């Protein structure tokens, strides 16, 4: 076995793969093999190396050379020149911007943006050997203070450094010391708060365990400054290792004479005693901590008098936390100016944060104060695991608050955080993804504070209890209208009237979650739904909760497992008539929440649905409850898309005879106009529309609102209620020069013309602008209609494209080119026709309000992508003038119709709306769900009662053994027809499964819906 002399790391992060890293890697391998170097040079396809914007990138080690913008043709040169002859290929070398280090083996992103002051020795020295601390300048600061400085000079340095208490409140350390110094009295105490009680914060533990001497030295310097000779370190009993190591460090320091009498011959005496906490959170509060050291119940007392004057045993005392003390020696040695050079105007230095929760790199990070929140979470923390979405970060523990994605660009400093209703606190940073329920989080913290309230003052004791009762009620589905207002009111009282910090801040988590996640509270209270799928009383199975139509997924999946296909389909259509349609086009939020993903991968619910739908021979009609009265009532549904047809379907099941008006010659809305036949065969759609018609629904095509009739004319004809499901049919304008040239089309019109009218003009070189599903559909349709090249331009990265990932993958397989981080500037025209698109490269900049990085133009040169057709797919709008024609209907902030999410009712009482017309371009299944809700809402409006019999949940009668281990099959793949067989036609791309595969997949379901016969608690084990 020969030794590998060189490693080539080819970045195969998402960005680089998108720009062709795999091809580069293959080319390199081929060249290396050609030169017979396989034995000595090893190619490693590594994780993201960082600068995705210049990908594909590769690094050569041990040389430490970093190449960028690689193409497969470069491989030969790199191998011949660099790897064979040792000559670096200069033209490809990355010229790093100032401050950027070459990523490599020695440095990883996690450490790059960090500045280690507090953690300077943690993870570097052996904490159990004082000599190692001394070797790294340990106790030099104490020596300097004792030999060269007066207490006043020390305090002055601390003030100048701008160090603020790291325990949470952020009070100036220098000022605190000077108050204690000035207080009258011979005996003074220096106290170290190591009662790190905020759940999710563990920086103090880490310092006490990893570098105890830095705290001891800091305390000694502080003692000298304030004139104390005795110190106490109060450390949580939950940290036995920290207590052990700190004690050991004390013993060693005493042996060297660095604690005790006459330290280093200066005449200064000082020693420290450890006191262990006993499990009371309130003891982290300074007055409570002192009463606890005194040996009493650790109850806080009102201030003033402040501890600086009357503290421990009534003597002037100064309390700082572990992290604050650990900063002190460095400030003394390197100077206040040096320290103040980190951080912001008002908040100097660095802060340690404990990153935990739903983030890839959990652990401790130390960064200059003021770094944007998003950089900590994404650049250092590595982002959110498992492809989940960032939802919020909880900062400051039970006293803090949640910060949602809109504020990822916020600099993390004391002032900015408190503006957002959070606090710096001790530095706990708990990242939450969309699997976290914010109401449950609020309940968790309230429960915590309620439990830890010492009970001395009633606002805290009683107030938090009342709040907890309300929040618990909400989580259990018993919430009432007005509960949120009651919480806010109570919260304000508790905050204003409590004695100590614990009570004053206890309402924060509730108030801040209400501030940013009011919609989640509303969903719990009004819909009895927990969107995150957490609150067990509201969640039968997380997949079902995630389904906008509320389909009983475990029910039909288990029926498939028992070959009871007709029953399965009937169960599906209880809540969603479009089983076959959704089997093809649904974006399956159910699978995102599937608990099986915790074991291996989610159940392929959509695949199962496809199989199930294919087993249907003759269409079975669902249960209908006939009603003479309802049949007499006239209801109009405008728009035969998924929302309108779903509304009509459920109305018909209640005995109504709704009439559907459709502007186009064919019913189906976006399903027929925009979604190409290769994704959704037309006969499948037609079959399910026919089923709806057979329930007594009439569809009139070529009847356009605003042209053939108006809302008012419907009222005049005696319609009792109207449902508006008109979608968002207008394409948004690009807003760049040249967009009116010949050859520029909008995606919806392009797709509609082909899908409804049968033909559309297609260019040879087509450029599609946008990253949504309409863009991908248009691109793949253009390719099938004979375009030679199709390029999608998108200004962000692939990961941020709103289109479904599987659709993007298939588009690329078929030959669609994807150019990301590219923004169009101008349509280049020649003689009034499109000749190309002038573009600029973008880079990802700051975080914007959508929680994504904002693309910013790079200052390199513009370039032109030549094209003879440009299809714009950058957004859709309602076109409200035409629709309303004088009827006054309220719109929401995005310019769509404002409607009650529960009933679809608009500001006009007889007018209901749902689907894209309300939500903006969204999903088929959301439109179906909205149609159902509006049907129930219309019925309630007309009859005064709810009759949605299909909403009653039934226990499936399928077999399930809760004791058995989950079956071990991996997730079944959905196969597709070969690219060559589909590139030039509209044959359906995806294939169905065999019965054996489907039944096996069905049995992978963990049956989260299962409840033991009498016990309501769920016994699932994952």
């Amino acid at each position, binding site marked *: 076995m020969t030794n590998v002399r060189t490693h080539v790391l080819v970045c195969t992060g998402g960005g680089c793969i998108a720009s062709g890293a795999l091809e580069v890697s293959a080319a390199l391998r081929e060249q290396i093999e050609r030169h017979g170097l396989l034995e000595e040079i090893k190619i490693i396809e590594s994780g993201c190396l960082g600068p995705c914007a210049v990908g594909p990138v590769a690094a050569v080690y041990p040389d430490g050379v970093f190449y960028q913008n690689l193409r497969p043709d470069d491989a030969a040169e790199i191998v011949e020149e660099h790897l064979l002859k040792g000559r670096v290929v200069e033209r490809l070398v990355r010229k790093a911007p100032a401050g950027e280090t070459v990523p490599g*083996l020695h440095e990883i*992103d996690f450490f790059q943006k960090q500045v280690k002051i507090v953690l300077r020795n943690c*993870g570097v*020295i052996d*904490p159990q050997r004082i000599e190692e601390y001394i070797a790294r300048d340990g106790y030099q600061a104490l020596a300097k203070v004792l030999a060269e400085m007066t207490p006043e000079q020390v305090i002055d340095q601390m003030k100048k450094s701008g160090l603020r208490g790291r325990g949470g409140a952020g009070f100036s350390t220098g000022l605190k010391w000077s108050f204690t110094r000035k207080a009258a009295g011979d005996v003074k105490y220096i106290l170290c708060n190591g009662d790190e009680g905020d759940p999710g914060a563990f920086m103090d*533990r880490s310092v006490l365990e990893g*570098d105890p001497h830095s705290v001891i030295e800091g305390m000694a310097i502080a003692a000298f400054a304030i004139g104390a000779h005795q110190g106490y370190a109060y450390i949580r009993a939950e940290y036995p290792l920290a207590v052990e190591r700190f004690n050991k460090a004390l013993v060693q320091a005493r042996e060297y*004479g660095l604690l005790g009498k006459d330290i280093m011959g200066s005449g200064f005496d000082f020693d420290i005693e450890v006191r262990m906490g006993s499990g009371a959170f309130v003891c982290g509060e300074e007055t409570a901590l002192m009463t606890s050291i005194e040996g009493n119940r650790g109850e806080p007392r009102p201030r003033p008098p402040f501890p600086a004057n009357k503290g421990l045993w009534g003597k002037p005392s100064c309390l700082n936390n572990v992290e604050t003390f650990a900063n002190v020696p460095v400030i003394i040695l390197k100077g206040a100016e040096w320290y103040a050079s980190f951080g912001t105007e008002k908040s100097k230095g660095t802060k340690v944060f404990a990153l935990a929760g739903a983030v890839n790199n959990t652990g401790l990070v130390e960064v200059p104060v003021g770094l944007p929140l998003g950089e900590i979470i994404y650049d250092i923390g590595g982002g959110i695991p498992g492809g989940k979405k960032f939802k919020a970060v909880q900062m400051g523990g039970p006293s803090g608050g949640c910060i949602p994605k809109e504020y990822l660009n916020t600099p993390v400093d004391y002032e900015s955080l408190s503006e957002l209703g959070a606090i710096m606190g001790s530095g706990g940073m708990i990242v939450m993804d969309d699997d976290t329920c914010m109401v449950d989080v609020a309940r968790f913290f309230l429960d915590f504070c309620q439990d830890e309230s010492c009970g001395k003052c009633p606002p805290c004791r009683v107030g938090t209890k009342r709040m907890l009762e309300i929040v618990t009620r909400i989580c259990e589905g018993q919430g009432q209208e007005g509960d949120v207002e009651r919480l806010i009111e109570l919260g304000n009282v508790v905050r204003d009237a409590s004695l100590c910090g614990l009570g004053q801040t206890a309402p924060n988590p509730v108030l801040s979650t209400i501030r940013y996640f009011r919609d989640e509270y509303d969903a719990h209270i009004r819909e009895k739904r927990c969107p995150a799928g957490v609150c067990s009383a509201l969640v039968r199975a997380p997949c079902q909760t995630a389904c906008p139509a509320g389909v009983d997924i475990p029910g039909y999946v288990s029926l498939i497992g028992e070959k009871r296909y007709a029953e399965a389909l009937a169960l599906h259509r209880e809540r969603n008539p479009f089983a076959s349609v959704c089997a093809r086009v649904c974006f399956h939020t159910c699978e995102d929440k599937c608990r099986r993903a915790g074991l291996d991968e989610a159940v392929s619910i959509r695949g199962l649905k496809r199989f199930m739908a294919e087993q249907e021979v003759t269409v079975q009609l669902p249960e209908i409850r006939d009603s003479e009265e309802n049949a007499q009532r006239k209801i109009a549904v405008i728009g035969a898309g998924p929302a309108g047809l779903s509304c009509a379907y459920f109305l018909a099941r209640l005995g109504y005879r709704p009439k559907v008006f459709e502007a186009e010659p064919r019913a189906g809305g976006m399903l027929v106009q925009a979604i190409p036949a290769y994704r959704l065969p037309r006969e499948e759609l037609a079959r399910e529309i026919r089923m709806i018609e057979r329930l007594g629904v009439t569809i009139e095509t070529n009847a356009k609102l605003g042209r053939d009739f108006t809302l008012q004319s419907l009222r005049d004809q005696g319609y009792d209620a109207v449902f508006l499901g008109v979608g968002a049919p207008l394409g948004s304008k690009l807003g760049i020069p040249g967009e009116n040239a010949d050859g520029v089309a909008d995606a919806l019109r392009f797709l509609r013309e082909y899908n409804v009218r049968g033909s559309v003009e297609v260019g040879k070189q087509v450029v599609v602008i946008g990253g949504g599903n309409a863009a991908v559909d248009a691109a793949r349709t253009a390719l099938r209609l004979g375009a030679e090249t199709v390029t999608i331009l998108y200004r962000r990265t692939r990961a941020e494209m709103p289109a479904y990932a599987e659709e993007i993958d298939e588009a690329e397989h078929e030959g669609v080119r994807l150019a990301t981080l590219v923004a169009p500037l101008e349509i280049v025209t020649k003689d009034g026709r499109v000749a190309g698109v002038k573009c600029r490269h973008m880079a990802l900049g700051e975080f914007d309000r959508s929680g994504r990085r904002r693309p910013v133009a790079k200052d390199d040169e513009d370039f032109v992508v030549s094209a003879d057709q440009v299809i714009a797919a950058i957004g859709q709008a309602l076109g409200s003038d035409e629709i309303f024609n004088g009827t006054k209907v309220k719109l929401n902030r995005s310019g769509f119709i404002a409607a009650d999410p529960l009933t679809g009712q608009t500001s006009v009482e007889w007018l209901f709306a749902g689907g894209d017309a309300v939500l903006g371009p969204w999903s088929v299944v959301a439109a179906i769900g909205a149609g159902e809700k509006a049907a129930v809402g219309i019925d309630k409006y007309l009859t005064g009662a709810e009759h949605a019999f299909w909403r009653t949940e039934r226990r499936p009668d399928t077999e399930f053994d809760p004791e058995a281990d989950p079956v071990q099959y991996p997730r079944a793949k959905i196969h597709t027809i070969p690219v060559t067989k589909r590139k030039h036609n509209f044959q359906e791309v995806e294939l169905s499964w065999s019965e054996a595969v489907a039944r096996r997949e069905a049995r992978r379901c963990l049956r989260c819906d299962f409840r033991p016969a009498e016990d309501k608690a769920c016994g699932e084990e994952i």
Partner: protein
Amino acid sequence: MTQRITNPRDLKALQEKVKSEIDLRSGPKDLRITVHMGTCGIAAGARDILTALMHELGAAKVENVSLQQTGCAGLCDQEPMLTLTDKAGGSFRYGRLDKNKVGEIVRDHVLRGQPVLEYLIKA
């Protein structure tokens, strides 16, 4: 036994002394392996890693390696982990270790100077 420090000069002298001792220990040809033994590391099995290292180094009769303990490096997610510092001052962090991985690291990196790239912590 310990010499008491009675003035700042003593401290400087001690620092010089321990510094050179530490330098001597990780002299020009030597490697230093540090196992991160904070609460998180220990909970993740750092003690077993330390034992395995001592065993592997002993079995291979390696003498130019110093083995040390230290605290948490902040990357709890990667625990148990170790840092290997080589003669050139390069430090290599290995994460999510187990006994087998330790064996490979000793065999390849310590004995042959080939870092085991698969186990290096990458962001």
